[in-house]
């Protein structure tokens, strides 16, 4: 099985979801199917709105799927799932969760985890996740803030 590439993207808390949208857009533009995983319906609603409005020039068609629903992957190239539900056919998992489940992340070819740089607890969780992912053989990349997602994807051939 192909090794998962995990991107640990550093971001200040206040820009977190805006940065998330830029990464989703970059992957979508590169022709990848993207699943965004969130913890709650409130978070899903928030990101749903932001994906339509975060940039005047972008267009990222997407849908929100509730836990337990079957997703037709042909319908939308980007989905927001409430809860860590594995959706086959999606290439990239972008996690909006502070501490995502490693097994879940490793089921996708590419995973994106945001390291919230101004939250000590979350930084520690990210550190533990990094070490565990390294031990499991994932290919890890640290992306410092600020970064241009499109350029990073190009340089890593993702």
């Amino acid at each position, binding site marked *: 099985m192909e090794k998962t590439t995990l991107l640990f993207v550093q971001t200040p808390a206040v820009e977190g979801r805006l940065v998330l949208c830029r990464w989703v857009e970059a992957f979508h533009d590169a022709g990848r199917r993207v699943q965004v995983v969130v913890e709650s319906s409130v978070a899903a609603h928030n990101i749903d709105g932001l994906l339509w409005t975060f940039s005047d020039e972008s267009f990222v068609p997407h849908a929100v799927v509730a*836990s337990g629903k079957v997703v037709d992957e042909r319908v939308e190239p980007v989905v927001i799932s409430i*809860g*860590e*539900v594995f959706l086959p056919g999606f290439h990239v998992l972008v996690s909006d969760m502070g*501490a*995502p*489940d*490693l*097994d*879940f992340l490793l089921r996708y070819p590419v995973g994106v985890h945001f390291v919230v740089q101004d939250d000590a607890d979350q930084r520690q*969780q990210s550190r*533990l*996740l990094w*070490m*565990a992912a390294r*031990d*499991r053989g994932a290919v890890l990349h640290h992306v410092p803030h600020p970064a241009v997602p499109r350029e990073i994807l190009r340089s890593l051939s993702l």
Partner: protein
Amino acid sequence: MSSKGNEKTTKKTEASKSASKESDDMLPEYRFDYGKTRHIRFAGRREREDVTVTLHPVEGRCRTEGVKGMADMIKGYRFAEMSIQGRKHQKDVKIIDGRVFPGWWRREGHAVDVDDVQDVLEAAPEILVIGMGQAGRMEVSPDLRAILAQRGIELVAEPTEAAVATFNALFKAGKRVAGAFHLTC
């Protein structure tokens, strides 16, 4: 042992001492012929003796009986790694009737539902200990709680470190305990 036997042993020891007097010094190198080695009869026996498996007289099920000096089944846990009976596990893991089932995957990463522990329900333990992750973020569904209550299976849901201690104590006490452990957050 008789005094005659002792004498015999002493004589033999002295004899062997004098015989090997010339070779007392350590050689710079020893070459052993490992082809002539034999298995030690008692190697590995102690661990097996720690656990007695008996047949439960009423239900006809195997149960592990705690015995004095019995080692912990789960030797250690740290974030994303659990050591069980000398093997390291990096994926979530279940223990049912003393058997280890690595790679426990749930339909949702941080939620445990009925389907995720179907094999535990079939084994019908007295107690199910769920390790909810290092930070205890995992959730047990109301459906699963209801089914466990219905079947008289006690549920202990704790952060994984505490759950490991609980599981080990119950296992040592001879309870029919099953465990399901989430190893990360």
